[in-house]
């Protein structure tokens, strides 16, 4: 059957895939940790969180406000971080971005990057404080991991924008 012709101002029909695409992408990002390698120090950025922040910053209506609860729980279960870290900090990141959106009239990519850098650093630092005793000499590698995560955000952001290319705002 031929698809009905769509008028120029009509919304793109929403499919189930397009609704679930952000969540699937974020969960796949969390699953990067199952790559078969034995890490000697934390070298991998939290790809799930970077995905989450990128989706939220590119398209505010991609995820409901409670989405980070479920996605954070999933990330905690595969990442080896203490359980509850993702649930709490990812939701806090969402609230923080909501508050920033209230105050800022416009955001461009540089602001997005700054917000994502803050969110990722917050997540990693809280993770370090809750996972490992205070005196452990992990702060240098943590700093390197934070820097690597911040550097990775533009790539993740591009990837999310590419995945979202078929979306047409109403």
């Amino acid at each position: 059957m031929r698809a009905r012709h769509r008028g120029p101002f009509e919304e793109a029909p929403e499919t189930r895939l397009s609704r679930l695409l952000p969540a699937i992408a974020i969960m796949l990002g969390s699953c990067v940790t199952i790559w078969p390698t034995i890490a000697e120090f934390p070298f991998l950025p939290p790809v799930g969180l970077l995905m989450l922040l990128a989706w939220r910053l590119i398209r505010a209506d991609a995820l409901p406000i409670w989405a980070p609860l479920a996605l954070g729980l999933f990330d905690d279960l595969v990442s080896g971080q203490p359980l509850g870290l993702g649930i709490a900090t990812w939701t806090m990141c969402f609230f923080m971005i909501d508050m920033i959106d209230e105050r800022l009239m416009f955001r461009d990519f540089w602001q997005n990057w700054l917000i994502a850098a803050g969110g990722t650093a917050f997540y990693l630092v809280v993770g370090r404080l809750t996972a490992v005793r205070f005196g452990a000499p992990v702060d240098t590698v943590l700093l390197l991991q934070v820097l690597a995560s911040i550097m990775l955000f533009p790539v993740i952001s591009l990837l999310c924008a590419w995945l979202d290319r078929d979306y047409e705002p109403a």
Partner: protein
Amino acid sequence: MAPSNNRRPGFSRRAQYGVFWSYVFAVAGMLVGVILLALSYFDPSTFGAARTAVAEVTAPVSSGLSSVGRTVGAVPNGIGSYFMIHDQNIALRKQIADDHAVTMRARAINYENRRLKALLGLRERIGVPVVSARLVSSSPTSTRRFAILNAGSWQGVERGQPVLGPDGLIGQVVEAGPNTARVLLLTDPESSVPVRRTRDGLPALAVGRGDGLIDIRSVSNAAASFAPAEVFVTSGAGGVYPPNIPVAKILRHGRDIVLAEAVMRPNTLDFALVQRAFLPAPPRPVATPVAVTKP
């Protein structure tokens, strides 16, 4: 980009209440998350069942990816060894001849050792192997150093068992699921292993640092000094790790607390051997039913 103000969905009361309740739900969930985080801060082993349940699903995927990687990685190695085989053969023959005298001496010492032990009436415990399996993945985003082992309680793996590699100690099982187990690596900041120096038996603790290295801390009263390339092996104290497994090699000169690197670098290519705990904790006394006499 202008923020799309999706917190005011329009004049519909129903839509407004929907947004309101979703925020209430999110805040409540966040508080639950904070409570869960506090629980796992005070007792990291809580929720181990949930984590191993997810690992049951992810471990086969990691294992499959790893075997693909091994197959692809073996191709250049195979081609290289085909061309090198002649030279290698000559070198190996020479090495066998060189090592012959050492082997004979070691055999004689081994025999004498057994005879002396028999004379003394020493009863020796040996590490009982449980299963050998591969480590399939780890926790590369976390500051903790865990690895997932591709065998679990159905294969006899239990919490507290030591995990050995071909070169030395890898760590200890901390959570065991049906088919997967979580291994605490030596380099984890919470890991600490009683060790002794091979040269003179100086007792020390090998404590993980979390950045890939290990701290060797002297536990004797006298100020101990360490030199590079000194090797530490497990002492068997504490009853978890069997004695004489290589653990760490000192990196630089120092006193009391020095940097060391692990002898065994765990990877997904080698097999890891899980052993029974060296001296398992004695079984709990069975509560005897107390006869209650009515007055």
